[in-house]
């Protein structure tokens, strides 16, 4: 089937617009740091909130069951668990769940200011355009749109932004917005300019449904690890700042860093992200092995890209072991995690483009 050139052009247009909107969202996140409501007390409360949030949620749920005043989880400290109020005794479990959700929602509304709301809205719009761009590229070439390097990068950044949005909502990690969006804008910008490849057919070796499975999984995992790496870098910066402050030495860049949560929360966010991404990467490597078995007769032939995917897997496994070993958590674990991401980048950028092997499908000549 011939390539649909019109859709291909539309895809390019959508992706370029998405980059611009992401850039504006990035600026909005930056403005939040500069001008947003002072969240220092909220940050302190957030730290305490980590510790008692569930307790408060249980308490809030409890008081919701008995129809007591619904207090913001922010003020969970003021929440008297034994506070019973009149009425609503018969609301039962369903009312309790609604009450709990209501309490969490109200709590979430508190510290989120105008700039963050704008930035998140812009990111959502950008993601919609980005996804549409990836989708139209797929429609233009009548196959899944991750067959060459350009398509792979656009897809993985889409996954990264989607995952970041999800993590923001789940773990309230708005502070990551500036760093994640900055990285995405940079990478996507590079994709559009330097490594752009026009829409085209795939060579016969890639015409297999295992392409869909293997490259999809790798794209997903790379996007997720991308977010974890950005978090890791932020962690190291914040951790260094915290140490300097604790040691009484002068520390620069106070403005942004004081607004970010402590190292512990960043560390936990990075850990949870990698816990999400590691099984996906494992599955992707296995799917790649199955595909290699169909295509070349051997499920593992130590092809350079295979080897580096294995190295990346081992270093992420190192990270997971390190987090379970005393003396290796915190900074050392973050460094391991970033080393693993560097291996991943090396695999994607250097190995597939420069070192000859079976995986030279970048589309660049």
């Amino acid at each position: 089937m011939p390539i649909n050139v019109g859709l291909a052009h539309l895809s390019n247009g959508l992706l370029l617009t998405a980059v611009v909107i992401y850039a504006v969202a990035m600026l909005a996140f930056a403005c939040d740091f500069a001008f947003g409501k002072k969240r220092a007390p909220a940050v302190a409360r957030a730290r305490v909130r980590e510790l008692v949030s569930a307790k408060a949620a249980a308490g809030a749920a409890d008081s919701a069951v008995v129809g007591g005043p619904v207090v913001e989880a922010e003020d969970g400290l003021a929440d008297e668990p034994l506070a019973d109020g009149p009425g609503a005794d018969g609301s039962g479990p369903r009312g309790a769940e609604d009450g709990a959700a209501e309490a969490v929602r109200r709590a979430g509304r508190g510290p989120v200011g105008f700039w963050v709301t704008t930035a998140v809205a812009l990111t959502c719009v950008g993601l919609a355009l980005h996804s549409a761009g990836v989708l139209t590229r797929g429609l233009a070439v009548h196959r899944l749109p991750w067959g060459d390097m350009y398509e792979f990068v656009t897809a993985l950044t889409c996954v990264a932004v989607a995952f970041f949005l999800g993590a923001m909502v789940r773990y309230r990690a708005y502070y990551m917005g500036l760093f994640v969006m900055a990285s995405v804008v940079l990478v996507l910008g590079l994709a559009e300019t330097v490594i752009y490849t026009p829409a085209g057919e795939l060579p016969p070796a890639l015409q297999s449904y295992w392409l869909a499975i293997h490259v999809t999984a790798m794209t997903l995992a790379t996007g997720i690890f991308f977010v974890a790496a950005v978090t890791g870098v932020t962690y190291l910066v914040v951790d260094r700042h915290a140490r300097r402050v604790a040691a009484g030495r002068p520390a620069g860049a106070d403005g942004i860093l004081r607004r970010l949560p402590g190292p512990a929360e960043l560390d936990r966010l990075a850990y949870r992200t990698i816990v999400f991404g590691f099984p996906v990467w494992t599955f992707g490597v296995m799917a790649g092995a199955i595909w290699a078995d169909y295509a070349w007769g051997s499920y593992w032939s130590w092809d350079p890209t295979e080897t580096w995917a294995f190295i990346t897997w081992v270093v992420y496994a190192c990270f997971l072991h390190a987090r379970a070993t005393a003396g290796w958590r915190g900074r050392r674990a973050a460094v391991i995690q970033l080393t693993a991401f560097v291996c991943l980048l090396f695999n994607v950028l250097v190995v597939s483009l420069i070192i000859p092997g079976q995986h030279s499908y970048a589309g660049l000549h």
Partner: protein
Amino acid sequence: MTGLRIPPEAGAERVRAGGEWTAELADAADPQAQASARPARRFGVAGWLRWGWRQLTSMRTALILLFLLAVGSVPGSLLPQEGSNPEAVAQYYAAHPGLAPILARFSLFNVFGAPWFAAIYLLLFLSLVGCVLPRTVRMVGSARQPPPRAPRHLVRLPLSVSYRTAQPPEQALASAARLLSGKRFRVRAEADWVAAEKGYLREAGNLLFHIALLAVLVSIGLGGLYGYKANRLLVAGTSFSNTVTALDVFRPGRLVTPGDLQPFSLTLDSFSASYVMSGTLMGQPSAFNAALTYTSAPGGPSRRYVLTVNHPLVVDGVRVFLLGHGYAPEFRVTDGTGHVVLNGPVPFIPVETSGFTSEGAIKVPDASPQQLGFAGVFLPTTVDVGGRLASAFPAPLKPSVSLVSYAGNLGMNGGTSQSVYTLDTAGLHQLAVAPRPLTAGQSIQLPGHLGTLTYLGYRQWISLAITYDPGQFPALVSGIAVLGGLLLSFMVRRRRVFVRAGPGPAGETIIEVGGLSRSDASGGFEDEFSGLATEIRGVIGPPASPAPAPRGRPEEHRGDHEPPEGE
């Protein structure tokens, strides 16, 4: 790999502050460690072995070995490897004559078969086995173990809530116990409290993951012992059988003998390749089809199959893959005495993909009076680019052959093997023949009555990869188990819920519910706990009278014991 540990390691991991010496002080409480803390006079072989074993199975060693495994794989990806690309290794030797032998001494051209690489992963798996086996035994042993006692002060747990109810304590506890056991918690009910635990599958998943990794290694080993890989180039219209003499490259496993090869035969009836004819990707191949006829045993029924990339032929457990293709121009050579000394296709090897320019050599060692040799190129779509010949498109739209002629000694009688695709011109002298490309039917007349070469036309050839790997299916099953164990160990949380009931003021019962999650990797226990607490509240019933007004902020309740993450 933490948690339940032999004392010194546990001491080291529990004490975080104060540096490493504190770990030693913690050991002082342990008589066993105390014995080893005395100066080494009677430490003996057994003691050193035990020390070695403990070091080997510790987390730190696992970390170091994992890291070494990753680092050790790096040269295997950057340097050419003998197993997959022996020509590149030879080129490396030529380009770096001083460095290459040093690298070879450390097996850097065969990293993944090197003894040191094997040492790393074998040590790693030894460490793994030493850790996993005791834990498996322990897990099986604790399969029937009831949950632990409820702590006295549930408010000290990370998650806790309390409320009042009108029901008497025994009844309330019984309802709570029923509810929890309905949710598939393992429940232990005593007079004053109920303890419930869930999530044992996490440890099972963790162990399954690590054992399955071992199984993957064993499967790979199985393939390495009993499997084989081979390559064969097959010209259209010819056949071959799966014997050692018929294979171009044969890489058997260690325990494979030539008699173990499955006795199938196959014939390449025809091959067709289609290319993109226009657009930006013009010249890229779009489909390959090889029409085969095969039998799985001599004298058996013959079947047909169309071989394409990604769709191998499976015959008798062996898989035959289509790897590549090329052109084999046909020649007829007549020597000086008038005999026809060569008459058939000679495969040429493509050297570039955009036009499929192919190079090859024609060796005629039995020509008289002199041996003859020809080397040159086959151009599928011949074009003249500024005086030089090139091929513009990979399909045979305008094929021609351009050859240089030689005569003399080909060097084949001495017994040392040569590549059939390259000519060793050391013993040959070039013949003075006017160079021109030949189209089908044209000939070269060699000077000095040495003979004639006629280019007859071309055929296509395919290259096949023949692989047999008995460990392939076990590796797949083990891989699935790896993934399953990983998901289980990440998604299942080991958690405990406690309920205490005691008499409160005004004849009411005070119910305390506390919850604790070990290694809550993905979060979510808070939601589960709040849901449980609410349900218990619902099941137990409301208090008789409303509560007094709030007394002010309660203290921050935070457990002393912070569950270690990533168990």
